[in-house]
């Protein structure tokens, strides 16, 4: 199919050098009319740099970009828009206080008499673009009031309104539920049918195989190759991505029977108005309890209620036969519970702080001399975890924001490991990190359980849940619909319960 199309956008020999790092090294990339070209690579492979260059955000250091066969020098995002290239960024930057329509038409607002903006006309046009992708949103709503998935639809409408011929989707699926993703794919397919060129970036291999016509893989800033999807399989793609073979099934040890193990944590009748309803479950020593559910099912809310970040309205939490009163994360940590939060960058780590500071912060109490903090102890403590967890960082003083997602996640884990906690809650610990690092994180979690810790693992990815859990709890609309032992948990059952099919 791609062979049939003509090259809309063609980048040749693109290089980008940052001080000390070659972010892109002589990369070729091409999008044809009417194709979905997937761009894949681990974090730090150079995908983001490439699309920032194609979107006019960063200047390139070498190479040429051709649009419709003519060489163009992109100078700014505005310039790229004018030429018909739109980038839908991963962390969709939005102006939350401005209306949907204004976000769509920012700096291009339709004007009426005396060159003053006509809000009526702007809202009318916005509605028209939204209708084109069959989205029913009032263009006057402040964009910040919409859920992330709808914000994304708005940015698609914006790309359409730019008359973009090339639309670049940077990991759009990270914030979408299964149903929303299906909807997105329908939209992408219709855009493709109109002869636009689509670039689609994702960490999820299933998506690449489902939506893509071709895939280009980058690794360490270099082009690994471009292949038609029809000609490669999953295994080959992973090999291209990682540069080595990985056993992805993750089955490995298999699940334990947990019935015989002593329960560590028991939750009875936990309620929080509007988000959690009558939550009951128990968690055993050495067990990994997977929690699956669609976005908005209450998984994160459950985690937050358990560690006291949000107050539950009623219900009891028992730890090793003792009833806990947890009204703050501080109390939770004292009692031996911790959370690795979903939003790693803002809640899991301090991005501007060093690796050492991040790892040691909760344990500073134990890292004192007689009176004052001992920086010797602190450095040894941090270095110990950096090597144990194989955190890749040039030195302990590196700011965490420069680490890859996987290494940031390890820092979050390291933070809790030294504290002799009993229950570890992970909320989407592998979201947005690359295939190789995902596996590392999963094996670290398994190792925790093997040491006898109790683990709650929240994830949206069914294969991940199935590969790691001993039992799986499925949530739907704030309730636990079912708790299944691993051998009874199948993809179909999880999906069914998560969409509200009642347990018999």
């Amino acid at each position: 199919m791609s062979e049939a199309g003509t090259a809309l956008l063609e980048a040749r020999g693109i290089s980008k050098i940052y001080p000390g790092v070659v972010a892109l090294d002589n990369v070729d990339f091409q999008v044809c009319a009417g194709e979905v070209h997937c761009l894949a690579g681990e974090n730090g492979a150079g995908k983001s740099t490439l699309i920032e260059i194609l979107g006019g955000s960063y200047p390139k250091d070498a190479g040429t970009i051709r649009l419709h066969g003519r060489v163009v020098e992109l100078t700014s995002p505005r310039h790229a828009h004018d030429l018909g290239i739109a980038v839908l960024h991963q962390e969709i930057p939005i102006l939350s206080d401005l209306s949907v329509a204004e976000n769509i038409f920012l700096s291009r607002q339709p004007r009426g008499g005396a060159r003053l903006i006509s809000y009526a006309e702007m809202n009318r046009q916005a509605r028209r673009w939204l209708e084109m992708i069959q989205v029913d949103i009032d263009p006057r709503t402040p964009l910040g009031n919409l859920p992330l998935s709808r914000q994304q639809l708005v940015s698609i409408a914006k790309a359409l309104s730019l008359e973009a011929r090339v639309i670049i989707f940077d990991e759009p699926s990270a914030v979408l539920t299964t149903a929303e993703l299906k909807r997105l794919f329908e939209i992408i397919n219709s855009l493709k049918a109109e002869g636009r060129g689509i670039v689609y970036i994702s960490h999820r291999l299933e998506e690449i195989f489902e939506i893509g016509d071709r895939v280009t893989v980058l690794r360490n800033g270099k082009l690994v190759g471009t292949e038609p999807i029809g000609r490669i399989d999953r295994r080959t793609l992973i090999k291209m991505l990682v540069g080595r073979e990985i056993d992805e099934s993750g089955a490995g040890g298999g699940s334990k029977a947990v019935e015989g193990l002593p329960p560590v944590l028991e939750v009875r009748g936990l309620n929080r108005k509007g988000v959690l309803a009558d939550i009951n479950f128990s968690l055993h020593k050495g067990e990994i309890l997977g929690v699956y559910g669609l976005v908005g099912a209450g998984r994160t809310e459950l985690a937050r209620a358990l560690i006291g970040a949000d107050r539950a309205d009623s219900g009891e939490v028992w730890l090793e036969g003792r009833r806990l009163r947890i009204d703050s994360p501080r109390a939770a940590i004292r009692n031996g519970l911790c959370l690795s939060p979903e939003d790693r960058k803002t809640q899991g780590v301090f991005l501007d702080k060093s690796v050492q500071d991040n790892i040691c912060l909760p344990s500073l109490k134990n890292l004192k001399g007689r009176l004052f903090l001992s920086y010797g102890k602190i450095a040894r403590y941090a270095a110990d975890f950096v090597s144990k967890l194989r955190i890749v960082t040039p030195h302990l003083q590196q700011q965490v924001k420069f680490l890859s997602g996987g290494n940031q996640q390890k820092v979050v884990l390291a933070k809790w490991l030294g504290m002799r906690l009993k229950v570890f809650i992970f909320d989407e610990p592998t979201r947005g990190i690359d295939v190789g690092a995902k596996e590392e994180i999963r094996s670290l979690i398994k190792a925790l359980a093997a040491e006898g810790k109790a683990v709650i693992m929240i994830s949206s990815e069914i294969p991940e849940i199935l590969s790691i859990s001993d039992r799986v709890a499925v949530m739907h609309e704030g309730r636990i619909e079912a708790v299944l032992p691993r051998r009874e948990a199948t993809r179909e059952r999880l999906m069914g319960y998560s969409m509200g099919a009642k347990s018999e």
Partner: protein
Amino acid sequence: MKPKVNQLLVDYGLYFVLLALIIISTILSPLFFSYMNLANLLTQASFTGLLALGMTFVILMGGIDLSVGSLVGFSSILYASILHGAVFTFMPKEIFIYAGAPKLTPILPLPLDILFVLVVGAFFGFISGFISYRFRIHSFIVTLCVMIFTRGLAVSYTHGQPLFGMPDPVSFLAYGLPAKIPMPTIIWLGSSLFCLLLLRYTRFGRGIYAVGGGEEAARLSGIQPAWYRIFPYIVSGFFAALVGIMMSGRMGCGDPKIGQGWELDAIAAVVIGGTSLSGGKGSIGGTVVGVLIMGLIINIMNLLEIAAYPQQMAKGIIIVAALALHSVLSRRRGR
């Protein structure tokens, strides 16, 4: 689904507060609705109001401008000195020794000298904005330095002395009463209307909101932030200079010490008017109401003959209480 009343309170709370204050004032003092009192109240509000307009631009963009109070003083003395035939030469001390107004020897014809001072004010604003943008220094610090510098400049220029003598047209700017409306109020409301159009109905104005709401988001939407980051300070400096000229007319002299602390009144009015200090959210309409609310509070305390220092205490408490209430109400709105 959401309680409608609450929503109304949040959206129009400011107007309710204004209305309530007017009613309370009427009840508390029979003098409140007299022409004299209202004209007085509006005149006083107008000066803060003009500063608050410029401040709204700056705060919407995500900055703050502490220099406006000093700029009022500097513009006032700069203007007076042009009328006395001296500019950019520090005044010899002898000028101030004899009593009474010295003879005016203006070096520029009248509309041009006003224009000159306005341009200088705008230029000081430009400097603040440029330094803050170019060197990535927080505007709080930059404008603090400009504030200190400008006050120092103003005071050393005339050795701290006021410079007497103002021509009639300038007095008209301060005291004129066309159609019985105080001239400063006409200037203030006219400027407000202009700013409102600029901020709400032009792409440039919306760009200021966008940059204040998130610079990166704005940039990715095709906005080049530089000009949007600098322009608000120019507006702010311009209005500070205008207030300086009008104050000269009002006092009949250029006074280098005028305007101390006025930047804080302007900021308070903007914030009461619902503009978020973190940028990107707010409106000129809100600022106008905020200024009126501040003016009313002071006016009613004056009518009740509360002394100046307790007035300050009350002002502090009322501002914080208003903001706390607003925050509680808007949080209840959900999300």
